């Protein structure tokens, strides 16, 4: 097992090097001149040149690249110009915010989508099946920012049930001391139940928005793979042997139908983590997606590179976890590097 993990990690190294080179070149190829942008509206040509020098952008590309990789090797991702902070620190602070939101959204989604998919598969053509089809199609067809805005409009603006969409905590609560970076956990560790409640209520709408969007792939995949498994011979045998429908569906069919669902889950998770920019924008969520987009808009190289690199590492790790999970769920899957 350990050798397998080591081997897998070894194989990830070339792709990471590739990511470093490609993001470096891509950010340099972006239109826009960061020196002119950050010199301010009233800058003269000399002022722009001064700033270019300060940022080290007057050096040849290859020298910039070596300097960048050297900094990377020392764990220095550089400084963001738009926020003025070190990129590594910012990503460290913002990743948990995105991860907490995405995980919660995914959990809500799984809790609804998997039973829905299973029910739809066991009764194809019934009302549950249609319900599944309609909700998932609707969920995936509505753009996330739209769902988010509608939820804010209804639950905050009209009904007043939900707190103001102002990020992770109500403005008058202070953040708990960071242990995991997940406010739901950190507030409990700090035994600050009011803050826990606030963090929880701030999470509901954005997590629901994400859940609605990610229902479709999970439910549809569950349904499809359950249908395939339910029509297979071992299920017929199980049924013929007189096992109860619950045992047949949960123990035999579901476990076998899990593999594609897990793959989908991992894809949905990594996709959501990077792509929930719009949800973050709508809910003023201090996450990693909105950070990267802000940086991109202002040609701020360092955060873009840091973001892509972080995401690449996450993908590698996630894939590894999924592969290990495969082995746990289905011992027939052989793990090879």
């Amino acid at each position, binding site marked *: 097992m350990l050798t397998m993990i080591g081997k897998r990690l070894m194989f990830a190294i070339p792709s990471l090097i590739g990511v470093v080179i490609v993001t470096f070149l891509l950010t340099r190829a972006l239109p826009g001149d960061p020196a002119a942008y950050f010199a301010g509206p009233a800058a003269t040509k000399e002022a722009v040149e001064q700033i270019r020098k300060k940022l080290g952008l007057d050096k040849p590309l290859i020298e910039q690249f070596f300097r960048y990789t050297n900094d990377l090797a020392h764990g220095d991702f550089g400084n963001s110009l738009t926020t*003025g*902070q070190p990129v590594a620190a910012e990503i460290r602070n913002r990743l948990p915010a995105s991860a907490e939101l995405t995980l919660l959204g995914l959990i809500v989604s799984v809790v609804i989508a998997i039973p829905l998919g299973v029910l739809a598969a066991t009764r194809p053509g019934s009302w549950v099946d249609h319900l599944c089809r309609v909700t998932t199609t609707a969920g995936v067809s509505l753009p996330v920012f739209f769902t988010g805005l509608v939820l804010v409009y209804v639950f905050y*603006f009209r009904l007043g049930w939900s707190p103001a969409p*102002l990020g992770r905590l109500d403005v008058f609560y202070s953040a708990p001391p960071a242990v995991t970076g997940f406010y739901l956990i950190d507030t409990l560790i700090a035994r600050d139940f009011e803050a826990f409640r606030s963090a929880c209520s701030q999470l*509901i709408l954005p997590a629901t928005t994400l859940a609605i969007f990610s229902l479709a792939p999970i439910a549809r995949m569950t349904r499809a793979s359950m249908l395939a498994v339910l029509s297979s011979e071992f299920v017929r045998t199980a049924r013929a042997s007189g096992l109860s429908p619950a045992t047949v569906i949960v123990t035999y069919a579901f476990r076998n139908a899990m593999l594609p669902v897990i793959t989908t889950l991992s894809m949905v998770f990594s996709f959501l983590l990077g792509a929930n920019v719009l949800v973050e924008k709508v809910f003023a969520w201090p996450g990693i997606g909105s950070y990267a987009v802000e940086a991109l808009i202002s040609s701020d190289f360092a955060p873009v590179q840091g973001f892509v690199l972080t995401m690449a590492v996450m993908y590698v790790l996630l894939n590894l976890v999924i592969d290990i999970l495969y082995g746990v769920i289905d011992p027939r899957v052989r793990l090879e590097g």
Partner: protein
Amino acid sequence: MKRRDFLKSVSGLAAGAALPAMPSVISSAYADARSETLLIVSEGGPNNLDIHGVGTNVPGYEVSWNCYDRLISHEMKTGPGGVPYYDRDKFKGELAEDFKIDDMSVTFKLKKNAKFHDGAPVTAKDVKWSLDRAVSVGGFPTFQMSAGSLTKPEQFVVIDDYTVRVDFLKKDKLTIPDLAVIVPCIINSELVKKNASEKDPWGLEFTKQQTAGSGAYKVTKWTAGTEVVMERNEDWVGGPLPKIKRVIWRMVPQAGNRRALLERGDADISYELPFKDFQEMKASGKLNVVSLPFSNGIQYIGMNVTKPPFDNPKVRQAVAYAIPYQKIMDAVMFGLANPMFGAPKDKPTEVAWPQPHKYNTDMEKAKALMAEAGYANGFETTISFDLNFAGVNEPLCVLVQESLAQIGIKTTINKVPGANWRTELNKKEMPLFTNVFSGWLDYPEYFFYWCYHGNNSVFNTMSYKSAEMDKLIDGARAAAATGDTATYDTDVKGFVDLAYSDIPRIPLYQPFVNVAMQKNISGYQYWFHRRLDYRAMAKV
């Protein structure tokens, strides 16, 4: 799982999820904190707390303005609509108790009880160090200082612990006003020097993250891109103690949510909303919406005069007659701007800027001018705008495009990403574009010096060059410095007339700065920098 069980568990889950969403119990301490706290929501936040920093953005100016003091500041007067408006010509001491302007210098006596946030007294050497820093760090601060002929550290002389003299390099009417802008702020020199390094002798890295001033507020928490929290400085001597104890400034990127927060009464103040929202909020009357014109600012259509076809004044005039001015005012600005067009034919030119020109939408005249210029069949060109301000620029350009098509000018719209806009302006190659310029210092010759003078600054986006124009602008600047009102008046009228007959840029309107706030917020003041001054605000 049976169907019934499933439904039960789902509804149970939904009920559980709804619980924490109930309005939380508001304790009395919480309510107190609310009434002394100002909650501001805006789209963007600062990237640096020090205006001397590399690439400090405009929200950063707001922090600097409220957390640092200057030697002098402006008095207030009553502006349009009864809103307090800074008085361009009257100054009062902020850190200075008293100041005396002589022929070639100005002497400041400092307030003896002034203290920095860490308790250190504000002395003359802090003042000198801070002004030296402003003229030496380079970039925007140094540039702004030079606009008032403040360029050399030798100009700032320490007389004794509480007296400083600023020597003039030459007579310049803008020197005193330039000492009251945001840049010449006074910094705690000992504290910053302690945290400076060889690579960073002015301690820019230190002041980027924390405020080291003597101002009315100090930053206690800053999470870049999320929030800024500022607390009142109880020992402030720059003016009467502010009423607001704490300012929480949250970044809410979504304009619709900012409006919702205001209308629900959760946020106290917001700006940077779409004009349509401001207009609707104004109409509904639930909130106070203040709209005041940008001082010395104009949105315009510029034409590159170095290349055909816009090198021909007839073509430029044709364009000026073809712009759908009123439509832009109604459909793009929702009436929230001062029109800068269609002055009556017989109206004399004033000694003021901005003032409306005499062009109106007149397609027949425009077509005739096009024919005269030899472009009866029109031509093709592109019109460019800055995507950062797409909310205004995009519909504006579409309207212009539609209108120009009627006189045979076929335009393609070129949307330039914000990061690239300044580079494109600097290249001076765009044939036709729209942009805004607004000067901190509210003097006609200041505007014209940057926008029309033949020394071709970044803001002379049209690359306009005219010996006559240069003579008039230089004449007005010289006359202003010596106090020769008669020459000044003729020269100002002269350059305004020339700018309108030659028409390299077509003013459209003077934009408004719009701020929406709760009815219980008072004390909003308009400043040349157009950001909020928390010091005069109160919440009842």
